[in-house]
């Protein structure tokens, strides 16, 4: 019995410092991001959510250049990106898609420039990897309070505008008819999204940011029609995937190619995608049952 347990959870897992931080951080991030994810999926703004992560990456590398902490660079540029998307894009789905694409292109172009200058001037050649792929085990415990604070702020903002936001996401016209300031609410949502994405990027890397934002929420919305329930299910999927992912990453230290360990982001992403596929299959099957 204990042999099986030891096979699943390699020794020292729960006592390991970085692991504890990774678990804590991923839990907090999962909570914040998956809640926002439900709104994002409903609004059809998955592209914006992903773009803010990449644009934030540009900000992060720019910050490294100037010597400022990457979080602020991330956050500032992500906010600027969100603002640009709001200004440039309109309400229609297609032109919003185009506007997001343009802003993302400009942002990634900047990232190219900053990374280039980084490697030339500051000689931080690992910068590309850190910013774009991130590592959940490389977070210091000092970041935890910041993570919690920013996360709480984003969630509070969303909670404050929850009803008008949900209404305008489900039916723009209905919301406008009821006096909701659709554009204002949309803008505030993007700001909260920028904060959450910057947070998750720094804590877990750009890939995980998008994966945790979209995957659990998409899966939850296949299982339930009620947005409130979807937030809970989404958070559950996100936290479960992150924790199991961290566990597997820790275990993989002993797997080939030896000594390395596989990246946690790989496991977490695969788990969220599997969760989505399972939810989707389950939903189809229960619908077809006579």
């Amino acid at each position: 019995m204990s042999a099986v347990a030891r096979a699943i959870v390699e020794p020292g897992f729960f006592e390991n410092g970085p692991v504890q931080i990774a678990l804590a951080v991923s839990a907090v991030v999962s909570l914040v991001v998956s809640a926002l994810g439900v709104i994002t999926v409903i609004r059809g703004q998955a592209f914006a959510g992903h773009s803010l992560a990449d644009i934030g990456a540009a900000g992060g590398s720019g910050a490294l250049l100037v010597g400022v902490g990457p979080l602020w660079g991330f956050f500032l540029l992500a906010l600027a990106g969100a603002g640009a998307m709001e200004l440039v894009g309109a309400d229609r789905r297609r032109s919003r898609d185009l506007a997001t694409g343009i802003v993302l292109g400009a942002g990634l172009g900047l990232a190219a420039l900053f990374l280039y200058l980084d490697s030339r001037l500051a000689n931080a050649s690992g910068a590309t990897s850190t910013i774009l792929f991130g590592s959940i085990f490389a977070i210091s415990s000092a970041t935890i309070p910041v993570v919690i604070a920013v996360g709480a702020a984003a969630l509070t903002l969303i909670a404050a505008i929850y009803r008008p936001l949900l209404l305008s996401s489900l039916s723009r016209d209905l919301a406008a008819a009821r006096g909701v300031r659709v554009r204002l609410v949309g803008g505030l949502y993007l700001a909260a999204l920028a904060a959450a994405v910057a947070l998750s990027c720094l804590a877990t890397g750009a890939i995980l940011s998008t994966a945790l934002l979209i995957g659990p929420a998409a899966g939850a919305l296949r299982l339930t029609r009620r947005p409130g329930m979807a937030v809970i299910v989404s958070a559950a999927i996100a936290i479960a995937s992150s924790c199991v992912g961290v566990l597997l990453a820790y275990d993989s230290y002993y797997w080939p190619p030896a000594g390395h360990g596989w990246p946690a982001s790989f496991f977490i992403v695969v788990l969220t995608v599997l969760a989505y596929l399972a939810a989707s299959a389950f939903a189809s099957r229960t619908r077809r049952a006579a």
Partner: protein
Amino acid sequence: MTAGRATTAGEGVPPGGEEVLRVDGVSVTIDTREILRGVTFSLAAGELVGLIGANGAGKTTLLRVILGLATANVGTVVIDGAARTRPGASIGYVPQKFELDPDMPLRARDLVALGIDGERYGLTLPSRARRERVRSALRAVGAEHLAQARVGELSGGEQQRVLIAHALVRGPRLLLLDEPLANLDLSAAQEVVALLGRLTRERQVAVLISAHDINPLLPVMDRVLYLANGRAAVGTTDEVVRADSLSALYGHHVDVLRLHGRVLVVAGPGDASGVDITLGDHGDGEALELHE
């Protein structure tokens, strides 16, 4: 106008003209819900029939079955003598939902040209014959002056006209329109209705228009196909839109009020208390619920 031939509500005998469409005993079940039950009717050339029913009554489903986009569990669809099982090119169709971006680089004439052979592979050379066909289709719907305008910048009524031209440019025998009046204001709706009535006669097309409100169609409808509870009642307005026939159809008491030539069907209590909004566009009717 209407043949005035006495028919029993439920049997769709066309008033004259060649039969173009015959739907026989079509039943459709989706996710254990019986959307349509034994729908039977036929449509003749030069006849305009209104497909009336509340939202969710199965109008779009019926149209999709006719188009070959959905399969009926039971029953057949015969168009021009040939059984229909798959989508093909011979039916004119104006869909309910379409998104014509204002910035889209497509003029009205381009959209109509796509109606000629838009589904064929390979390139074609522009020719005078094609241009003339497009022009005459636009003329027939009274939209010739809009030929060079961006489709996305046209008003709702103008877009409907262009879409009708697109659907008719190849001279089909059957034209289906899914809720064409839904987003139009009163005067635009009246214009489109008058246009459709005229085109039906002139071109001898069989036309089936779905709507949730029967009133705008009253001036031009030859017969009505009323859908409720998955079942259909067919006949003239006087035959079908009556308290007794509709009560039988709905399965509970229904009142029909007539005032100044307008009809109001009061189907009774029991509407959903929440707001149902459809998320996504896959035609499988996924809806999110928002309860007040």
